[in-house]
């Protein structure tokens, strides 16, 4: 059992409980604006719900999962006592307080600005302060991960850092730096206006600050999933990691190139010129590299497991895989969704094609498929894998677990494929209502109904997930032993300094951010007359 099980369980339970609430809101939103829902007479309720859904799913849920998983990795991969447990609890409680502080104004309709903030729309100041507290709480985790690794290094000079911890710390640094963009937007621009100290704001500059956070945050969400691909899946299905070195290179690439690419979210914006848009587009293409490398390494690792189990032939080995193992199932589903979602992502980041789908339901479909699908399904698998080590009890509902994963996969496909389609037809995002009686919109009705069905399948799967975990708290006791990570085919004995430390890569990440963001930000910040009057939400 893990020594810090209470700490980790607190993170996971709070994350999953909020996830359950936000998932329910999401399903309701899909229903209410579809042809089978009746017109919601107050669209404002829709936007409260949408703000809550985004804030929880974007800021709170993945952050808590990464933190809880990070503490588990630190303790079990380094095989040392977690340093700073009291600080870890402080971070956790900051996030709890921040979440509650943010949710109250949302529920009261005083902060319906969506999780992307959208100044010059300005909501209640406590919403933004709540989000800041969540981020500050997570920064404590970043510091703790760094400190724990340092303590371990001192005790093991020159030894290769275990891959799981190397990746975990890379993810934490990525998060620390990517959150700075939104932090600057909140602290320098939005909060002074929300607090009544100023009444104008530069909306264009705010969008650039937010884009700094908006893309790399996705890679922060993705980190736990990639860590699981490399260090849990091969162990769980009886294989080996094909290459420890390639894994390290992939995580380093994420750290370096996930950051300076956020402006591909602003291709359609008037406040940046075409040059920087192209640079960001090219760098975004680069971020596909670590994913391509990962897909190769993981498929090779899985093949090793299959051949060890007696699989033969060019593709025949696929049948020899342990398909009844939830981790195997989750990985396969995750890869399918990553494939479709990644292909869609290449379209979004394309300098030319983006205009066809920008801000349509295609985008909603894209990030639900990647984040809600490929990433979150592995969060489920991580929880299932860790649960016996956290509760000291066995998870016995294997069939139920498989059903839950199947439902999530089917639900996500049924939800997002029609979304992509109506997006191509030009259906805009973030609408509380569509007039399906309009002959130009009527043809989209069937697709929208399909995706509502998908939404309810997802809700069913989400409830099952919570039920399985809750039942796992009361299952018969069983000792799960020490929590272990996958070994590589060739376990590293000596790792080059560059692949064993983060300093060089963090420096490169910061330098690239400055070269790709410095000039546009400076230019916007110094150009006069671009500040516009704030529009207060809920004030009319």
């Amino acid at each position, binding site marked *: 059992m893990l020594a810090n099980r209470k700490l980790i369980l607190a993170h996971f339970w709070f994350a999953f409980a909020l996830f359950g609430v936000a998932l329910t809101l999401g399903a309701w939103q899909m229903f209410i604006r579809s042809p089978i829902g009746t017109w919601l007479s107050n*669209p*404002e309720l*829709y*936007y409260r719900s949408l703000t809550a859904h985004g804030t929880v799913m974007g800021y709170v849920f993945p952050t808590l999962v990464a933190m809880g998983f990070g503490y588990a990795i630190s303790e079990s991969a380094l095989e040392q006592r977690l340093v700073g447990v009291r600080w870890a609890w402080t971070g956790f409680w900051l996030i709890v307080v921040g979440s509650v502080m943010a949710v109250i104004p949302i529920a009261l309709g005083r902060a319906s600005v*969506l999780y992307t903030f*959208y100044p*010059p*729309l300005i909501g209640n100041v406590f919403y933004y302060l709540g989000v800041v507290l969540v981020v500050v709480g997570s920064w404590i985790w970043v510091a703790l991960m760094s400190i724990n690794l340092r303590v371990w290094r001192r005790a093991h000079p020159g030894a290769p850092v275990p891959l799981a911890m190397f990746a975990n710390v890379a993810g934490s640094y990525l998060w620390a730096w990517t959150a700075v963009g939104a932090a600057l937007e909140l602290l320098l621009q939005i909060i002074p206006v929300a607090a009544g100290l100023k009444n104008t704001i*530069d*909306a*264009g500059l705010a*969008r650039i600050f937010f884009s700094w956070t908006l893309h790399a945050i996705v890679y922060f969400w993705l980190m736990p999933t990639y860590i699981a691909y490399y260090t849990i899946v091969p162990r769980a299905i009886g294989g080996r990691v*094909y*290459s420890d070195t390639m894994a390290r290179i992939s995580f380093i690439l994420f750290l370096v190139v996930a950051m300076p690419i956020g402006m591909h979210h602003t291709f*359609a*914006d*008037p*406040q*940046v*010129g*075409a*040059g920087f*848009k*192209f640079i960001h*587009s*090219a760098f975004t*293409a680069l971020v596909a*590299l670590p994913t*391509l*490398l990962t897909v*190769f*390494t993981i498929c*090779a690792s899985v093949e090793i497991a299959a051949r060890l189990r007696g699989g033969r032939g060019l593709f025949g080995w696929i049948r020899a895989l342990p398909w009844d193992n939830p981790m195997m199932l989750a990985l396969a589903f995750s890869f399918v969704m990553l494939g479709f979602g990644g292909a869609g992502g*290449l379209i979004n980041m394309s*300098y*030319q094609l983006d*205009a*066809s789908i*920008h*801000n349509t339901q295609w985008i909603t479909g894209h990030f639900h498929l990647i984040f809600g699908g490929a990433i979150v399904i592995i969060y489920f698998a991580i929880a299932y894998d860790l649960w016996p080590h956290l509760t000291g009890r066995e998870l016995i509902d294997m069939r139920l677990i498989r059903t839950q994963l199947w439902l999530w996969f089917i639900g996500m496909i049924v939800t997002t494929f029609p979304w992509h389609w109506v997006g191509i*037809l*030009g259906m*805009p*995002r*973030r*609408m*509380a*209502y*569509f007039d399906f009686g*309009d002959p*130009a919109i009527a043809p989209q009705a069937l697709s929208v109904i399909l995706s509502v069905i998908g939404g309810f399948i997802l809700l069913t799967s989400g409830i099952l997930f919570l039920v399985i975990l809750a039942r796992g708290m009361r299952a018969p006791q069983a000792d799960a032993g020490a929590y272990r990570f996958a070994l590589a*085919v*060739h376990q590293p004995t000596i790792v080059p300094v560059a692949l064993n430390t983060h300093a060089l890569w963090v420096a490169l990440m910061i330098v690239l951010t400055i070269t790709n963001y410095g000039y546009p930000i400076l230019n916007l910040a110094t150009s006069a*007359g*671009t*500040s*516009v*009057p704030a*529009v207060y*939400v809920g004030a009319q």
Partner: protein
Amino acid sequence: MSAQETHAGSAEVAARVERRWATIAVIIIAGMALLAAFAGIHQATMPQPRVETTDPSRIHLSGEFVESNLGSVLEPNGNVTVRAIGQQYSFTPACIVVPVDTPITLRATSADVVHGILIQGTNVNTMLVPGYISEQLMRFTKTGDYLMPCQEFCSFGHEGMWGKVKVIDRTDFATRAKAGGRLSCVGQ
């Protein structure tokens, strides 16, 4: 051969296969970036290149976006310029009229919060950020009515912010343009 040597041999094979795959991946990525650069430079398909600013609190008083200047105008060279603004929760003009098969420049901005313009069935798609002017080049190849929803959340009335584009025959447009002024669907 000892077990140790076999192991080292397999590590070498693994490294070689990996290198090959990494090379392919890099080529794919470089190819994509080059394609985008080629299309951008050669066919001039790219996002809005220039940055222009305007003060939203004064756009109704003077300058390009005063009310009497909004709508479509036939330029001396035969091209058409459309000027529009978005505000909570409508576009002005609410219905834009343009001729078919004609190069059109859309110039638009926002009077309050962030909005967006998307013309369904086309790839015309731009943000309207208060303080900045958005410019899009477009050309319609078919006459008819197109829906033009606001594609960015602009507060509680966002779902009701739908405009329209009416694409009409070139000669019809030229006839209407003779009377001067700025054209919209009004009076059609």
